[in-house]
């Protein structure tokens, strides 16, 4: 089953390089994501057998993040089907500067999308920390060409920053890996393999100073990829310049995978009795990201960059939740699910807006509700979801985190958290409502066909899922989230 999860997208990636016909290639993309989804659902029903001496195994945290990735990829591949059909192969005019550019070949785009899915799947099923590292670096390399789909100089700049900053960051995580091996090299350690479970079992005999150093490097390394401030500098560029499908995947799926890397190392630290040390660091980085995002969200002139900074905010909340511990860990896991669904939905909707208005400047977009009603409604609903208004899922997860903070008497953190959220609410509401309401600027031509079914249905499906999670969490998901939270030292 695990092999199937990896081989389906990998084979499809190779196939899409070989196939000449664009239409067939798009069908392969959607079919592969449906197949992937199918096996993910099967993994919920039946525990997948570990393979390769337990190197690949789907444990509870892995299953959670695999499911998020699979759902998002399915929605995005359907959206991509419509998106690619609308992208002509000839030269196109740049929205921002009026210069001309061409797109990367579609075959490469599809193949990289599928390779990206393969590597993210590998991240979620890797139990060996070395293999996890290899998979994590591979996600960077598979997704870099995706950011450079529109071949103009801004996306090129974003790609370069992404490649270099993330590669250097992840190289530091490799150093963390080696430190961990040193921590595990004392004679008391009987089994020297780097499997997460083995390390956890022998947690008490690991060398504490080296383990601390290892966690620091993991946090900085994978934190760069996850977008924790102040290591997030590549994130707004990459998310705003890539095609919206890719932004949705980067923000919804990739950040979570990096988060999983941090969680795995914190699991080991927890077993070694270094829980408080990890928690403090996570709270620190979490608060920093929240504050940083709040500053840059205000008066952000570009609406895709605004969404990107909102991602920095939300990964901050996740880190904070795990850092606070106890009930907040459950909240953080729920938040990861909700944020992925909502942010992917918003990026896809932003893609629709961009396709019609041909500008990313918030100032120049107005009257979406009249020009493209369905997209407009989704945009407003997405706003309410992302700032954590009831009845959407993010409200529930943020509420759980705050509740747990207060229960533990961490009033200071709770007050800071809530005030930053209020600030972000104000900052984002200005932009969102300016865009949604009012009348369209007369000098702005409308391009293409607003509100086509294939462009609207995927984000709508994601939006409905977020709404549902705010009202009712299915028992199976609830059990899974509790199990994951328990593994991370919360409840």
């Amino acid at each position, binding site marked *: 089953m695990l092999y199937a999860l990896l081989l389906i997208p990998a084979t499809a990636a190779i196939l899409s390089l070989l196939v000449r016909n664009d239409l067939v290639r798009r069908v392969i993309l959607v079919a592969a994501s449906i197949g992937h989804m199918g096996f993910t659902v099967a993994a919920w029903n039946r525990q997948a057998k570990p393979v390769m001496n337990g190197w690949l195994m789907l444990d509870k945290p892995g299953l959670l993040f695999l499911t998020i990735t699979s759902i998002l990829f399915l929605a995005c591949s359907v959206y991509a089907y419509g998106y690619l059909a609308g992208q002509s192969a000839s030269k196109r005019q740049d929205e921002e500067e009026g210069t001309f550019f061409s797109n990367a070949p579609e075959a490469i785009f599809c193949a990289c999308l599928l390779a990206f899915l393969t590597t993210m799947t590998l991240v979620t099923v890797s139990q060996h920390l070395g293999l996890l590292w290899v998979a994590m670096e591979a996600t960077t390399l598979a997704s870099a060409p995706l950011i450079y789909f529109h071949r103009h*100089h*801004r996306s090129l700049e974003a790609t*370069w920053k992404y490649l270099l900053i993330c590669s250097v960051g992840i190289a530091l995580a490799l150093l963390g890996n*080696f430190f961990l091996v040193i921590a595990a*090299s004392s004679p008391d350690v009987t089994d020297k393999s780097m499997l997460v479970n083995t390390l956890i079992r022998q947690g008490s005999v690991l060398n504490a100073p080296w383990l601390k150093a290892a966690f620091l490097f993991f946090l900085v390394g994978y934190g760069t990829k996850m977008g924790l401030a102040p290591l997030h500098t590549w994130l707004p560029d990459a998310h705003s310049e890539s095609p919206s499908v890719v932004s949705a995947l980067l923000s919804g799926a990739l950040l979570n995978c990096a988060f999983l890397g941090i969680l795995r190392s914190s699991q080991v630290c927890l077993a070694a009795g270094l829980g408080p040390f990890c928690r403090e660091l996570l709270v620190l980085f979490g608060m920093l990201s929240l504050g940083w995002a709040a500053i840059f969200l205000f008066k952000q002139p570009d609406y895709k960059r605004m969404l990107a900074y909102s991602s920095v905010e939300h990964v901050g909340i996740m880190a904070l939740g795990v850092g606070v511990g106890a009930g907040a860990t459950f909240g953080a896991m729920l938040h990861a699910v909700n944020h992925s669904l909502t942010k992917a939905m918003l990026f896809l909707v932003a893609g629709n807006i961009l396709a019609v208005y041909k500008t990313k400047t918030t100032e120049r977009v107005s009257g979406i509700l009249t020009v493209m009603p369905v997209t407009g409604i989704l945009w407003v609903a997405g706003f309410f979801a992302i700032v954590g208004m009831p009845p959407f899922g993010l409200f529930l997860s943020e509420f759980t985190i705050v509740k747990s903070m207060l229960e533990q008497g961490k009033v200071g953190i709770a007050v800071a958290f809530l005030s930053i959220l209020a600030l972000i609410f104000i900052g984002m509401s200005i932009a969102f409502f300016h865009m949604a309401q009012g009348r369209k600027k007369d000098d702005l031509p409308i391009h293409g066909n607003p509100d086509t079914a294939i462009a609207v249905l995927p984000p709508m499906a994601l939006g409905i899922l977020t709404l549902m999670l705010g009202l009712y969490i299915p028992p199976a998901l609830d059990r899974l989230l509790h199990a994951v939270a328990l593994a991370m030292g919360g409840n």
Partner: protein
Amino acid sequence: MNNIADTIMIFLVLTNLALLGVSRLGTCIRIVALQGAVLGLLPLVSSGGHVEWHLYFFSAVVVGFKGMVFPWLLRRTLKEVKAQREIEPFIGYGTSIALGTAVFVLCMWLSSRLPLPKEPPSMLIVPVAFFTIMSGLFLIISRKKALTQVLGYLVMENGIYTFGAAIVERQPVLVELGILLDVFVAVFVMGIAMFHIHREFDHIDTDQLSRLRT
């Protein structure tokens, strides 16, 4: 055996300092290649006499990649982009070397405070590994050309590799090869990106990649 490990470490320090002071891109690529090739021998030396066949195999692969494939990729890119052969540093060569020496002393001090659970094959390994990582990072931030940033990334990776090969007990071959493959693809993709940067801007100076802000 220790003597050989020591010699390799001293060689590493010298190549790092040379990289900080050299002004021509072609020479830089050659130095990084040499550094990588010598590093490939490290696992043979540090295993303490008992050398298995797969270690020979792995060593050969590392020498092949770091000493031949990476430099070949980089030199090809250099030819394609017809970059000016000067490096154009933000921080001058003399200052770079002085800073490098200071950092080396710092690394010596730092590693004296990090007790290893097991005696390494050479006492120089930890400080030199740190110094190589720092040199790589320094090259990335202090040089203008995209190509030197890739070189910096490779030097940094060399430093991390030194650490891993010398101190850490053998990682499974699959993981080692995976790491090598990742670095290879990274250099490959960065090479392609550089080619596009050249075509788009007519240069590969990263200080001018600054349109995207806030």
